């Protein structure tokens, strides 16, 4: 198993753990409220406890999640470029082929995140922050993830440009940055979980 696959597994694991903790946080609140009143549904509770953290932060959080998906696809792209060429996607080799590829992935990710707002409350990726109180520092950390994901993307682009002469350092750095960015995106979730555990 190569580096890429290991990091991919770790990344997916972290994503699942983050979502599971988010679900546990929400369920804990729901259980407590159910002791007081049994007539409140999860969606109603979600609506009631949602707080807006400002449009700027919401836009940055959404951008971070889009960037996460783009960076993830970029990380797994380099060895697949020949396959894309043979599948009739020769523009990937053109001057702005990588950007056009990012546009395609970003459109798909944006649509997915928008549609995910209709999913169960704990699966609404770009909307998970609305049930947590967030300090300015938390917001900065979340916003920082965009920068990390951008650097991860650049690192992947470097490998794509150099393909098939891929730099393993660049590849590992790209995956590590992706992992750290995901951790930062789940900071409010982990923080709430730790505080509740005390």
């Amino acid at each position: 198993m190569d580096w890429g696959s290991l990091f991919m597994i770790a990344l997916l694991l972290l994503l699942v753990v983050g979502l599971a903790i988010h679900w546990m946080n929400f369920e804990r609140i729901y259980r407590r409220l159910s002791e007081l009143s049994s007539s409140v549904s999860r969606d109603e509770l979600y609506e009631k406890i949602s707080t807006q953290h400002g449009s700027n932060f919401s836009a940055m959080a959404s951008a971070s999640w889009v960037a996460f998906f783009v960076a993830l696809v970029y990380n797994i792209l380099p060895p697949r470029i020949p396959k894309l060429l043979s599948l009739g996607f020769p523009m990937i080799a053109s001057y702005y082929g990588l950007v056009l590829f990012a546009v395609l992935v970003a459109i798909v990710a944006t649509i997915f995140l928008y549609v995910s707002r209709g999913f169960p409350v704990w699966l609404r990726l770009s909307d998970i922050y609305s049930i947590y109180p967030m300090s300015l520092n938390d917001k900065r950390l979340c916003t920082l993830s965009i920068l990390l994901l951008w650097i991860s993307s650049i690192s992947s682009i470097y490998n794509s440009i150099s393909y098939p002469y891929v730099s393993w350092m660049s590849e590992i750095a790209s995956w590590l940055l992706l992992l750290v960015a995901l951790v930062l995106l789940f900071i409010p979730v982990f923080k709430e979980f730790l505080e509740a555990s005390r």
Partner: protein
Amino acid sequence: MRYRLLALMLLMLVISAYAEGPTVSPPPPTPSEGGGGGSSHKQTDMEKIIKALEQGKKQNPKRFEYLQTLLWKEYTPPGEYELPAVLIYYKGNKTVRRSDSLEIQAYVTNENKIEIRRPLYLYLEMAEPGGDFKQVNSQPQIVQVNEYYSSDDVNYTFRSFPEITDLRSLNHVGNVRFRIRYTDGQYKRYSSNWTVSSREIFPVLELNVINNPPVVNYTNVTYKPRYSDPIEYVAEITDPDGDTLNVTLHILEGDNRTERKNVTQELRGSGTVRFRNSEYGFFGKDDAGKTFHYYYTLGDGINVTSTNITAGPEIRPTPKLLVENPRMVAEDENYYWWGRYNFSIDVKSQDENSFPLTVYLYTNTASNPWKLRGSKTVTVTPERQTVSVETSFDASDNNQTFSYRFSFSEPDQNGRTSIDLNGRQINPRIISYSILSPASFLNALLILVIFLSSGVILERCSNRRRKTEKGNQGGD
């Protein structure tokens, strides 16, 4: 027949009386003979008559025959039997082409009552131009006694002759005559025995048969092929009469008089005929540089028509092309697919003549087999010159070994029209710019813009959705 027998019986009675001498009265019947005596006497007389006849026939056959002739009586039908009239009924134009459809019918009128009518047997006869009448239908058309229509006291009927639908089988054109021969089993007549004046009914039908010559439309063979090129004479031929045509191509030498070769193809009606050099071998290596002429003749069985003499083809002289040193030089020693590759070849004429030459370059990889990359046309002179085609490969050709081919419009000193050579492996790199290039920086910058734009768009859409949902809840 019945009347003949009756006459014979009478004759027999006379002979019988003559043969037996004086009549002897028959004896009265005895009781033992009973009431059947009269019948027995008649039978005896009859036997005597028969015997006398047999004897007379043997002893004096001539007299017997004379007696027969003497007693022969012609049959006369009951009532006033009138021989029916049969004429030709024809509605078409009297000037016809051989291929025109023809419908000739017999018009039969019969004034006899049904009791005395007889079946009629009709035969259509045709006389070709300058010829005698010949029967057309092998089987007669029969009109039975009850097959007439009645109108205004006229009994009439029609009969068609399906054997004749057109006049394609005619070997000559001109006046063709038709008449009908008919018989009722006893009398034989012709339609020409009657006189009638009508626009559609004729005792003898005369048709003026004309022939339409075939029309030919052919493509000029005026281009300048090599003798080994696929030279083809094509002619589109239409014959209005639909005859079977003999299409002959005549190829004349350059003097426009001597016939080099003629070949014939058969064509039914209309269609396209093709005479290929590869099939008939009109031209050979020695004909290079010569000019030929040609014309077609078309025979439709009646006439032979010919087209104008047309020039063609002018066979190109075989040039003396010398090809040397085919090569490929890559701009970059890394052999990237996007790199420029110069494919070149040296050419010159082996004699004083100059001629045009087109050189085509093809490259071959697993992804793009034998792809035409470019061509160049030059005038080859006795001076050596280099023909170059510059090209690059496709992104999908990366990491593949290529080969290349020079193809020429003229055969070289070895009679070849192409040369295949092996190239090298193309570098596996796919993206043509480096990480430090402006394109790379711009890519990185644009990606950040995409991230932020997506976030803003998503936020705007979510915010609008949220407001709409709240508005709906407030309304509720």
